[in-house]
């Protein structure tokens, strides 16, 4: 039976009163990730907003064991946890590496790529707020073209983001997926599925950031949904090479068209200086990627 808000497990692993901003999509996503794993987890977290969510010594808001690790080393730390558990004969736990886009696309990509090549058995989740938000919104490899950030303050970013999920898919790992905090049931199901897969598993979770992207924090869910409705985010999974659209992306593919990307861009203050040329470039990129997904999907 498919999970919904009524039948989903009730036990929470995030305690009230954590340090995230009001309306933080990461907090929502992490809440459901831990629920899907039933807390049977050892998490490893690099410097990131998530570190702050966990809190400050001697207290933490999170009721799962967690190992903090330097910025570049999330996937290596996860590898170490897996190796340690194996050496000690401890079974049944999921090692969860969870890092932001900074810690995944940029400084952490070397360790992640290597762990995937070694087929190390852990679940890696990248929560993507498209910038180094914990340090005040500096640009990352995931920041979109035209976005203003702390380090692209006037001209906006001159390059579009890298497609980390495609990069991870190219490693030939058994499970990659995209998810979105605005679709928590889809995220929950994907994490649950990934839990049962052996090998390196990668899930990219889109987590809009109210202060970083300049929108009202009550709009977090709406912005996340707009991202899917305009094709900026495509919800899919690739299981042993089989590509499937899921949730709202599946619905859109079957029944409708994407809304114009500018409807998503114009809601956010970080795109206030974006040029028409950049919007067109992004729209073209979105269209081409959407078409590739439609061609690939086995469930349409």
């Amino acid at each position, binding site marked *: 039976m498919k999970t919904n808000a009524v039948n989903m497990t009730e036990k929470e692993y995030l305690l009230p009163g954590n340090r995230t901003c009001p309306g933080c999509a990461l907090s929502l996503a992490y809440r459901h990730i831990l629920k899907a794993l039933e807390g049977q987890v050892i998490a490893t977290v690099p410097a990131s907003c998530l570190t702050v969510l966990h809190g400050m010594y001697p207290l933490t808001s*999170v009721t799962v064991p967690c190992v*903090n690790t330097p910025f570049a080393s999330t996937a290596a730390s996860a590898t*170490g946890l897996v190796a*340690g558990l194996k050496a000690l004969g401890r079974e049944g736990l999921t090692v969860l590496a969870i890092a932001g886009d900074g810690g995944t696309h940029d400084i952490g990509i070397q360790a992640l790529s290597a762990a995937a090549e070694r087929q190390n058995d852990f679940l890696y989740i990248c929560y993507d707020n498209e910038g180094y938000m914990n340090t005040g919104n500096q640009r990352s490899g995931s920041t979109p073209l035209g976005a203003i950030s702390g380090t692209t303050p006037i001209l906006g970013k001159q390059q579009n983001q890298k497609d980390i999920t495609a990069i991870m898919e190219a490693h030939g790992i058994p499970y990659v997926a995209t998810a979105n905090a605005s679709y928590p049931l889809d995220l929950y199901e994907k994490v649950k599925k990934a839990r049962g897969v052996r090998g390196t598993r990668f899930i990219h979770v889109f987590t809009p950031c109210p202060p970083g992207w300049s929108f009202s924090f009550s709009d977090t869910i709406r912005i996340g949904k707009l991202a899917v409705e305009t094709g900026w985010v495509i919800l899919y999974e690739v299981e042993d090479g089989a590509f499937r659209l899921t949730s709202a992306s599946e619905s859109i593919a079957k029944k409708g068209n994407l809304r114009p990307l500018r409807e998503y861009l114009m809601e956010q203050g970080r795109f206030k200086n974006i040029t028409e040329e950049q919007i067109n470039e992004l729209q073209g990129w979105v269209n081409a990627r959407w078409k590739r997904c439609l061609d690939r999907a086995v469930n349409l």
Partner: protein
Amino acid sequence: MSRKITRKASGWILDGNHAAAQGVKLSRVQVIAAYPITPQSPVTETLSEFVEGGKLDAEYIAVESEHSALAVCTSASMVGARTFTATSAHGLAYMHEMLHWAAGARLPVVLACVNRAMGAPWNVLNDQQDSISQRDTGWIQIYARNNQEIIDSVIQAYKIAESVYVPVMVCYDGYVLSHTEMPVDVPSQENVDRFLPPYKPHTILDPANPKNYNLVTLANPRVNAEGVLCHGYMELRYLLQEALQNSRETIIRAGQEFGELFGRSYANMFWEDRLDDADIVIVAMGSLAMEAIVAADMLREAGHKVGVLGLRVFRPFPKADVLKALKKSRLVVVFDKNISYGLEGATCSEIKSALYGSPINAVIRNFIVGLGGRDVKARELVAAVNKSLSSLKEGGLTQEYPEWLCAI
């Protein structure tokens, strides 16, 4: 390459790298993560051979960088596994951040540093700049003079590290020891098992009792949920320093127990050669300390009362022991295979620090030797000591910066 000699069942001919690998195997290490680098590569190759050949029951991770090597080891150690990595020079530098992390996290990782020069420019040969550069990270640092000491130090390193919860770096000279074969007595597994109990971690990674390790820790102490005032960052770091300061006792006790079981005592912080009646003391570390003994022989033949202080434990620096050993000295000649640029050799600074405030009024001369694999002969050490004798007449320090034994 290793061949058993027929005289003793436990006697082997081993180079330093193979001696280190044997030490790791005997210590029943459970997780190994290493990245190849000259002149360390044979260590990691031999260990992978042990693991693949079923001789060592361990997880072997062929990581993609040294930074990741130590990250794998720290997290595996968190879970409660006994871990090992090895590296040299740039590899050690690459994991610098993680060295700080492992020490601050109080994890008993053991690392073998095969001492090699730092670039720029590239040089794969021996000096001690690499490990000396990491002396501030909070690791215990032990230097081996020969291959026997390498295997023995690796085994003792686990006992020490796991007692005081401080990571230990065993350093030995690249090529001079790592690639040079010597007779080595390889302890029996049975005796090593007696010496080394299983690792008891202080960290718990269990969903039934969830804890979060090494979160942001504030400048000031903070009260926990039970109302207990917990440490601020500074207090936690104080505890690391305290652990290092107090580790002397554990190091010497481990060395003594090792001696009782294996017939070779390490109940010291440095090797003393003829210090009892010496008024001239040579200070050296690693293989150079063996060369210094030969130099001392030559100087004694010439009528000088020379002794050798072969520094074994560099961190924690044994200030009190050094003070005691140099009581009678009038001239201390310190040979450093490293330099803290802009000042002097690291060992020299430490020796001066040990003597500060004491009534010992020895002249201290510092010579920088052997950088980038420059060969150091006993006769060169002798010449340097002879040169220093003139300072005894002139008195005090005649040079602001150390002298270099090189071709300039």
